[in-house]
């Protein structure tokens, strides 16, 4: 395994997969707080949501870990009501696309209740969901819908890109007194990072600088943070230094860290795990432009899903997503304007696919 930051720090904690980090975080919080419970279709079956709820039923019993009817709308309402009554529900969806069935409850009630009722109630709930990719996930198993939730005041939106942040964000989300849209990515599930055993939180609203570099600021959201890490490895071959930022949480958004970086590089590439139009990339780019526009040259570009529905055939799907090569090409063109176009060596690009982020955290 190659890692741009070298091996994990000496005396480091054990390596844990993203999927196991999620399960561990939930188990530790359920142990700590009787009011935490997990529900959603299939959370208690033998597949355990690709392993992310593994062991919870055995340890905490069917009163605190239970499946639901296929009634996402009402089940979201049940989560909200239980949360208002003082419990801390974690409502699990195996794909983010199913959150569209929950929109009335999430947008009209969860997001607004604390405000609309003058602070009389809180809604401490977590809506977990996973974005799919590849092997025919297609139109309705691959959507990154975070910008829809970012649009509405009152929801927190979290998108950890590695196992360390997955655990720390999950614990923070469970302890948060607000509804948290917790966005996972299927392809991140097997990725490993050093994860301390003891419970810890990753603070919301603090971005992580994954790499330091002076030529261009790249912001990667969710799985795209890892794709950008791989792109940065390719760009190193042509001496383009990437300041790579993972926002981790989209609401609250740590725009200051991004602005500080762009103030130095004057170049911003935002790579989102969703469509560009009205998306998180639009929000980040416009906030940076508002802060830095007029103070000097500023080059901004966004990448994301092709403006199409996601197709199932690999022949088309590979053109749907940004990948390390296309990200590296775009970043190079921005960092070296006027120079000859450059494309990464396909063999190097293939190797870059093995890169995982291992810190520092």
């Amino acid at each position: 395994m190659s890692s741009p930051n070298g091996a994990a720090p000496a005396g480091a904690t054990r390596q844990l997969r993203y999927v196991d980090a999620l399960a561990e975080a939930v188990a530790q919080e359920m142990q700590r707080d009787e009011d935490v419970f997990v529900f959603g279709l299939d959370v208690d079956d033998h597949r355990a949501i690709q392993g992310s709820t593994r062991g919870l039923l055995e340890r905490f019993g069917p009163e605190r870990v239970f499946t639901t009817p296929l009634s996402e709308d009402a089940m979201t309402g049940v989560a909200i009501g239980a949360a208002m009554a003082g419990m801390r529900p974690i409502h699990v969806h195996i794909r983010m696309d199913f959150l569209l069935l929950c929109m009335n409850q999430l947008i009209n009630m969860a997001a607004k209740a604390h405000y609309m009722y003058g602070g009389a109630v809180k809604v401490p709930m977590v809506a977990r969901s996973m974005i799919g990719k590849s092997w025919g996930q297609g139109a309705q198993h691959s959507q990154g819908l975070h910008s829809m939730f970012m649009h509405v005041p009152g929801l927190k939106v979290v998108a950890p890109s590695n196992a360390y942040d997955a655990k720390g964000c999950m614990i923070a989300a469970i302890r948060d007194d607000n509804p948290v849209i917790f966005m996972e990515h299927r392809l991140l599930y097997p990725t490993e990072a050093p994860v301390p055993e003891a419970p810890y939180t990753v603070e919301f609203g603090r971005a992580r600088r994954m790499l330091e570099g002076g030529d261009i600021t790249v912001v990667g959201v969710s799985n795209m943070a890892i794709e950008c890490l791989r792109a940065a490895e390719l760009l190193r071959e042509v001496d383009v230094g990437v300041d790579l930022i993972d926002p981790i949480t989209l609401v609250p958004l740590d725009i200051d860290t991004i602005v500080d970086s762009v103030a130095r590089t004057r170049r911003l590439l935002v790579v989102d795990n969703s469509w560009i139009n009205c998306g998180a990339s639009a929000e980040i780019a416009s906030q940076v432009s508002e802060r830095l526009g007029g103070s000097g040259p500023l080059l901004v570009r966004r990448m994301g899903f092709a403006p199409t529905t996601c197709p199932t055939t690999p022949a088309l799907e590979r053109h749907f997503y940004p990948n390390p090569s296309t990200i590296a090409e775009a970043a190079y063109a921005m960092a070296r304007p006027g120079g000859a176009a450059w494309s990464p060596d396909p063999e190097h690009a293939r190797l870059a696919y093995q890169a995982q982020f291992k810190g520092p955290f």
Partner: protein
Amino acid sequence: MPSEYTQETIARLYRSLYFIRRFEERVAAIYPSDAIKSPVHLSIGQEFISVAVCDILRADDVVSGTYRGHAAYLAKGGDPKAMMAEMYGKATGCSAGRGGSMHLIDANANVMGASAVVGTTIPIAAGYALAMKRRKTDRIVAAFFGDGASEEGCFYETLNFAALHKLPILFVCENNFYAIHEPQSKRWATDRFCERVATFGIETRRITSGDLFELRDAVAGMVEKLRRGEGPALIECHAYRWREHVGPNEDFDQGYRPRAEAERWMEMDQVPHLAAMLPEAERAAIEAEAEAAIDAAVAFAEQSPFPEAEELYRHVFA
């Protein structure tokens, strides 16, 4: 009226019923002055349902109302001053000026927040009931909703879940035959509502008489079973909305429903019916007390300050 009703009980019921009727009539009277800065959906004519149900509930039971929820809020013991101030948009309102008439709440009286999106609070009420069951209490939730809300998918989703988990929740359908201006005949394939619900294994009762005591007796039996953990129950209670869907006036001149339809219900009005059961002095005392409390609520609302501009940004996140 069943003979077992004591004068004390009748007085208690009348106190609540009269207060709600007069409170809403005052709201309607104030409304043209534009002092109330909120759309109002008056429950006038339907108050007896909230009064009967809430009289059976304990203080620690929870009520979930609707955007036509003045009656449920007041019958459960919600603070009338905070409610009136909320409608005036004042800082002292029960939702601190952020909710208005459609989003009343009183956590101290266990009145859940109401929603303007029809049906939305039904599953949320079930979530409260789930929490009560998990905590092994014998508290219950009464969820009020209209016949229109029963057409929402989340209603049937909630019935199934509540029955499956034997949740302590009483569903109370206030069937007034209209969703906004659309009659049931244009919305329901059949009116066998209780039969539909009963297929979930939920005990149901249909009350068509408009009689407060008949309803109260039915609720009492169901609540007893709910507290024993026997699972949810549903009451369909026929009633009639006397005023317009939203606003302070009558609307029989609009042509979508005939006044004759309302007159049958006005003749059965429970306010004078209960008044006639009480000795004159006691009735007069109850009414004077109510009028004074309403005056106090209006004065409180009028004298309270509007929220400061900075308040706009408070409570976005907890």
